């Protein structure tokens, strides 16, 4: 059976892509962020995931506002990146796992999540930058199932709904009859606001609170309304929805094994966390 080994959550700011291309990892500005990935590399090398289920938000590459799904699940053999218009290099393509995608799709719809199914789907920097951060080498050793959550056009799904989406995915992965080691990725955040007179808003105290609660009490975070989240975390801080879904998919006993937090990267409070998922023994036996 497939096993969920844990989750990685990370900021996905486009300028990280530029910094990687220009090899600025050790510049004073970038180092406090990139060195937060040393542990992630160690953890991935040790845990050797086969597949990553990636919760992210599209910023106008695959989806436009003409048809904007709340939740969309990729079911492609391969996911390509293309020119996003703001000057970051186009990424290499990422291999998909359509069999797992369809298993998740079937389970989600049976569980009353009426998602959009995408057999052809471009993925933007919100997928490709976390991949490049996690595996800086020449090859990406995992296949992915990308799941896009609308964080762009209100009404957005609630934090509670995204936690439930993650839980549904977690149950579906555990019922997948293949020996796969699956990791969950949530991208974006933490607090930031790009638009309006409140541009530049960052809330360190709230970010710390979110990372603390995410591990053992995600329900506390799920009680916030989107409106209150925008107030506390900034207009684009709502990308935390991807983190909530990631956390939801960790179905066992969860512990935080790594955290890095640095202000600022671009206009954003940058954060990276690694959560481990340990199976609850009696559940398998029951």
């Amino acid at each position, binding site marked *: 059976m497939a096993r969920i080994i844990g989750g990685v959550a990370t900021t996905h700011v486009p*300028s990280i892509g530029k910094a990687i291309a220009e090899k600025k990892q050790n510049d004073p500005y970038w180092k406090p962020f990139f060195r937060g990935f040393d542990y992630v590399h160690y953890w991935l090398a040790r845990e050797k995931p086969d597949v990553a289920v990636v919760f992210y938000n599209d*910023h*106008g*590459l695959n989806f*436009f*506002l*003409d048809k904007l799904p709340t939740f969309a699940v990729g079911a492609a053999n391969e996911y390509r990146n*293309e*020119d*996003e*218009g*703001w*000057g970051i290099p186009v990424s290499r393509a990422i291999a998909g796992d359509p069999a797992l995608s369809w298993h998740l799709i079937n389970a989600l719809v049976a569980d009353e999540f009426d998602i959009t199914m995408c057999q052809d789907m471009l993925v933007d920097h919100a997928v490709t930058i976390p991949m490049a951060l996690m595996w800086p080498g020449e090859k990406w050793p995992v296949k992915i199932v990308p799941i896009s959550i609308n964080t*762009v*056009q*209100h*009404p957005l799904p609630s934090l509670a709904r995204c936690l439930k989406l993650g839980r549904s995915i977690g149950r579906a992965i555990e019922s997948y009859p293949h020996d796969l080691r699956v990791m969950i990725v949530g991208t974006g955040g933490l607090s930031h*606001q*790009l*638009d*309006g*007179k*409140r*541009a*530049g808003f*960052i*809330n*360190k105290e709230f970010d710390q609170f979110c990372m603390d609660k995410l591990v053992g009490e995600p329900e506390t975070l799920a009680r916030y*309304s989107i*409106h209150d989240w*925008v*107030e506390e975390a900034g*207009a*684009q801080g709502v990308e935390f929805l991807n983190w909530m879904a990631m956390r939801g998919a960790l179905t066992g006993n969860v512990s935080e094994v790594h955290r890095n937090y*640095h*202000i*600022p990267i*671009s*206009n954003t*409070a940058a954060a990276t966390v690694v959560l481990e998922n340990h199976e609850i023994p009696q559940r398998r036996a029951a």
Partner: protein
Amino acid sequence: MEQDIAGTIMFDGVQAQKGYALNRMCFSFNSAANRAAFLADEDGYCRKFGLNTEQCAAVKSRDVLRMIETGGNVYYLAKLAGIFGLNVQDIGAQQTGTTVDEFKAKLAGAGR
């Protein structure tokens, strides 16, 4: 009724309808050929996408707050800003009426 958040315009159905043409134009800037076509004839390009007078004026004057008020979404506007060589610190400074250095200092200050 929820209180408005100062300095923040929620990109909701009202804004999304208002800004559809402007955001659709910005979406087209994923293509290098379209970015070049815009630079060759800004007014013509704005007209082609059906921007209203206010939106055309906001684009012409590079006024980001005005673009947002008229329905622009910042993820799409960032593609337009990129054509002018402006990053999110530049547009942050413009929207908050500060210099780019002051804006960067404010960001760094949030970490202390």
